[in-house]
């Protein structure tokens, strides 16, 4: 469990570093970014291989909690991802973290999903399903503006081969403070345009105008402190029409979501795939996922399940984030 937490923290820090390297003087440092990618890969492997994840670190939410989708749920992340946790292991959830409340979660319908939502079968499973779907929905909204983000954020410094998607001058997306790599991972701040918003299920990424405006404060103490989910400050989410799970559990889920996807998701949406040769075992795996996500956004509004790939439905935001990266 603690390995997962550390992996989580390390991934956050790593993504912050890669972001900062794009805006620093001198451009991208190839060697350092290569090393950071290696760390990301190690953290990812730990993350995916740990068979008994914590509550908010789901492996296969589809397997135990959504029995109506047996056909869609694949064995795991796409090939080349390392060993996926076996569904059986995930079915029995470990004790919830003491700080976290676990009331029953009402059904969380997937927007646009024709299948019925998960039945509430028990506290653990329920939280699992609600969590997973909420998280998944939030992640999909992140994916929506990704195209815009990708197009604008690139810094084609010396590593222009490496980060091919960034034409034009260095541009720091609004919401990210200058420099300061150390603080970046701790709690990025949103400045300028919009009021800060957490990246919870109730508060999806705003319309594609400014996708990088992720809720900074929601991350709270930040991954560097690795606070327990229950201790992150509670943000009043901005309501978007579709997915609005109610109740304390949803709030708890949202807090966890903030911790995971707040800054990470937007960073990932900016970076696209780089050094993907390091991050996937099979050459085709990562690329497919990236394409799958990119093809979705154009077709759908935020909040809808426009992603066709069944695999992505079952992967929680962290895995998806790693895929995207």
């Amino acid at each position, binding site marked *: 469990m603690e390995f997962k937490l550390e*992996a989580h923290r390390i991934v956050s820090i790593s993504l912050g570093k890669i972001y900062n390297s794009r805006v620093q003087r001198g451009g991208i440092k190839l060697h350092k970014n290569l090393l950071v990618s290696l760390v990301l890969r*190690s953290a990812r492997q730990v993350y995916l291989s740990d068979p008994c994840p914590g509550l908010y670190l789901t492996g296969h939410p589809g397997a135990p909690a959504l029995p109506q989708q047996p056909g869609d749920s694949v064995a795991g992340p796409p090939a080349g991802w390392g060993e996926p946790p076996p569904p059986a292991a995930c079915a029995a959830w470990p004790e919830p973290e003491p700080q976290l409340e676990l009331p029953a979660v009402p059904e969380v319908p997937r927007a646009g999903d024709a299948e019925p939502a998960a039945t509430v079968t028990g506290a653990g499973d329920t939280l699992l399903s609600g969590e997973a779907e909420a998280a998944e929905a939030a992640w999909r909204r992140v994916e929506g503006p990704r195209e815009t983000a990708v197009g604008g954020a690139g810094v084609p410094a010396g590593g222009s081969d490496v980060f091919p998607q960034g034409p034009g001058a260095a541009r720091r997306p609004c919401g990210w403070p200058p420099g300061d790599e150390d603080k970046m991972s701790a709690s990025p701040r949103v400045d300028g345009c919009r009021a800060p918003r957490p990246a919870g299920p109730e508060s999806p990424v705003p319309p594609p105008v400014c996708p990088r405006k992720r809720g900074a404060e929601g991350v709270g103490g930040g991954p560097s402190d690795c606070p327990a989910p229950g201790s992150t400050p509670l943000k009043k989410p901005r309501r978007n029409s579709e997915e609005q799970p109610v109740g304390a559990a949803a709030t708890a889920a949202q807090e966890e979501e903030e911790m995971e996807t707040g800054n990470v998701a937007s960073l990932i949406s900016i970076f696209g795939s780089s050094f*993907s040769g390091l991050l996937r075992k099979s050459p085709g795996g990562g690329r497919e996922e990236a394409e799958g996500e990119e093809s979705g956004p154009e077709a759908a509004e935020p909040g809808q399940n426009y992603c066709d790939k069944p695999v992505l439905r079952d992967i929680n935001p962290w895995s998806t984030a790693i895929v995207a990266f």
Partner: protein
Amino acid sequence: MAGAGGGGCPAGGNDLQWCFSQVKGAVDEDVAEADVISTVEFSHSGDLLATGDKGGRVVIFQREQENKSRPHSRGEYNVYSTFQSHEPEFDYLKSLEIEEKINKIRWLPQQSAAHFLLSTNDDLRINLWHLEITDRSFNIVDIKPANMEELTEVITAAEFHPHQCNVLVYSSSKGTIRLCDMRSSALCDRHSKFFEEPEDPSSRSFFSEIISSVSDVKFSHSGRYMMTRDYLSVKVWDLNMESRPVETHQVHEYLRSKLCSLYENDCIFDKFECCWNGSDSAIMTGSYNNFFRMFDRTTWRDVTLEASRENSKPRASLKPRRVCAGGKRKKDEVSVDSLDFSKKILHTAWHPAENTIAVAATNNLYIFQDKAN
């Protein structure tokens, strides 16, 4: 100030009594980025000492002639010349800023017939330049993959063999060293020798790859050995044995449990250098808190010393320092948590013929001598 004289002494790092000799640079607490020293190198005779800084300036110090009235004291190093070597450049086409930082200074051998220069600023290529042909170079190593997404390692350091001008080594971010012979093929993509130590599985962590990246490689003066520096250790390799180093010296093993924090504050990416003494009996490298370490290869003893203004009284002996890794801290020990990671010694140089060392501490250059000199 020159060090005091003393009795005769053996060679090696540990039987010596190191004394403060000189310090160059501003005392100001606020260090300008441009003033940070980025390379230090003695000339082949040791009479000249060059430093380069991040601002693109080179300062050359020359040793004064020995003072006849004080025969036991060595001459001081005083500024001989200063010039702006590099200016910042901006490549507008690629939106790429080219730093003016001086990465390396190498003195040309005065009497050698070799007129070649090895340049390895590139992560992916090593080029060979003829000194009289400045518009093109010969590419001898190229590890750039066709698809950059398949990049898995970069070149981190390279050096010519001191005696065999056709032999060079280069190190990689994966902790491997390749020795190439330019006579065997034009493009040295295939190495003659490949040096790699198997990873210890028990010490595996998220940061294993980072800390195994080689930051410096140096041939011994004899040409029989080479030394590599990675984040936590210095390794001496026998050129005839590729499977593992013949010696491994721990520089600051107490940092192994702090790697996550060091990753967060970027210290884990610090590139420490290392150097041999003239007789190859001792090696030296830097650490944090303005500490530097010397290892005597014959007695297998090591010492930690500090470059600080407090110890900068004329002829003051340097007291060995100790870092307390855990448990009860003894008097005079420094605990790991109180180390100042902003004070790092990345660049050191050892006089080729005597026991005089130059240690770069951020923007200050310290010169220490053996008391017996």
